[in-house]
């Protein structure tokens, strides 16, 4: 046996799951897709007293268009479903473009949206995209719930705003503004590996065709998703031409991130990758915004 012994509960409803967490939250780990948690248990890096398996809580597995045109995603929705369901492409094309970058099909068949977000790995794709899309997260506990912005949710390395008795149950993505283009770019040593650097970009054009708003959120360059607000401010009001894009890419990679040297890349190399990927992402997003249907 690889994992250390643990008690196991597999509640069949959200109410029952929250009840277990209310009683045992501090000693319990929540098991969703298990694609990060079970490796950690196999290594015995974590030895929780109790595992609360959410996989029988089918009410948390849903994906639907919301009334405002955005998207509502249940925390237990498999990543593979995001990849296959056409509603994601319509309502959140940035998300649809990103999902195939998450690990491998075998992982996406089990991995869940809520699990990846609650795990809060700074090298994961979904947290950065959630920040870029201004997602809101529903955190439920026995007898209450609250909504938290993605930006506030990610508190540091593998650390979130979740209290021990709380469960991430739902992700709400607002609709994109009209004339918005998107792009997701990342560089990994092999397809499916963790990214050395990745970026989610969104640009919205005004009536005059100039940039009204831009968002740039990076993965793998800090202890949580890193948003380059200074670079975005440089882009606002610009024509999104080569000079404006180069200035934003320089600013973001030089002043707005502090990637750490690891076995795959030095700080300087990661800054270089971030600059190049920012350029690619902004060019693609700008072109999509100009050619958009809306």
């Amino acid at each position, binding site marked *: 046996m690889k994992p250390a012994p643990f008690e196991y509960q597999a509640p069949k409803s959200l109410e029952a799951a929250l009840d277990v967490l209310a009683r045992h939250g501090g000693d319990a780990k929540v098991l969703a897709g298990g694609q990060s948690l079970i490796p950690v248990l*196999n290594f015995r890096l974590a030895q929780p007293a109790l*595992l609360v*398996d959410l996989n029988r809580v089918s009410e948390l597995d849903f994906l639907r268009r919301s009334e405002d045109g955005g998207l509502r995603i249940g925390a237990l929705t498999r990543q593979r479903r995001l990849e296959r369901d056409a509603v994601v492409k319509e309502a959140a094309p940035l998300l649809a473009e990103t999902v195939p970058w998450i690990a*491998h*099909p*075998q992982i996406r*068949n*089990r991995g869940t949206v809520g699990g990846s977000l609650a795990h809060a790995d700074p090298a994961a794709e979904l947290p950065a995209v959630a920040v870029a899309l201004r997602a809101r997260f529903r955190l439920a506990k026995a007898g209450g719930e609250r909504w938290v912005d993605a930006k506030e949710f990610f508190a540091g390395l593998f650390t979130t705003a979740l209290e021990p008795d709380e469960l991430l149950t739902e992700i709400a993505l607002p609709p994109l503004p009209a004339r918005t283009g998107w792009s997701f770019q990342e560089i990994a040593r*092999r397809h499916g590996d963790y990214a050395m650097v990745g970026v989610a970009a969104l640009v919205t054009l005004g009536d005059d065709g100039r940039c009204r708003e831009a968002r740039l959120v990076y993965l793998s360059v800090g202890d949580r998703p890193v948003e380059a607000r200074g670079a975005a401010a440089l882009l606002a009001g610009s024509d999104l031409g080569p000079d404006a894009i180069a200035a934003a890419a320089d600013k973001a990679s030089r002043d707005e991130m502090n990637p750490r040297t690891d076995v795959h890349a030095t700080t300087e190399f990661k800054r270089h990758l971030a600059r190049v990927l920012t350029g690619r992402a902004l060019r693609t997003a700008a072109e999509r915004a100009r050619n958009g249907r809306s």
Partner: protein
Amino acid sequence: MSGTYKVAVTVNGQAHERDVEPRLLLSDFLRHELNLTGTHVGCEHGVCGACTVLFDGEPVRSCILLAVQADGHAVTTVEGLAQGPEQLHPLQEAFWECHGLQCGFCTPGFLMTLVPFLEENPDPSEAEIRQAISGNLCRCTGYQHIVDAVQQAAAKRRAS
């Protein structure tokens, strides 16, 4: 110590029931409880792909699933592919003909990844094949003969 839990699971069409500790991995359940040793165990943390099986028809890594999670589900292992001892699955036959294996350790994982892939993509490009197997490690072949085998299996499948 933790207690045991009942697992009722259908493996390769056959129903099985066992009482297991919750920490038992599905890969170890298949190998040690059911003696289905075709599912190989490599890295045991979800990286190498050797332990890939079908879980309700979708490829998953059995070393990062708990056996208790398979309760009520259907699993297909590499033993479920061939129709009989003299009748390999067409993809197995293509691996044989194209030298898609050398030591054979990774082969069950490749097969279980690629069988559903070919059903979803009957005419894959080389790039699509390489992307499909990016979650499976092979230390012998250099992958080229595996890609050849997939292309041959796909071509034969389309012709039949």
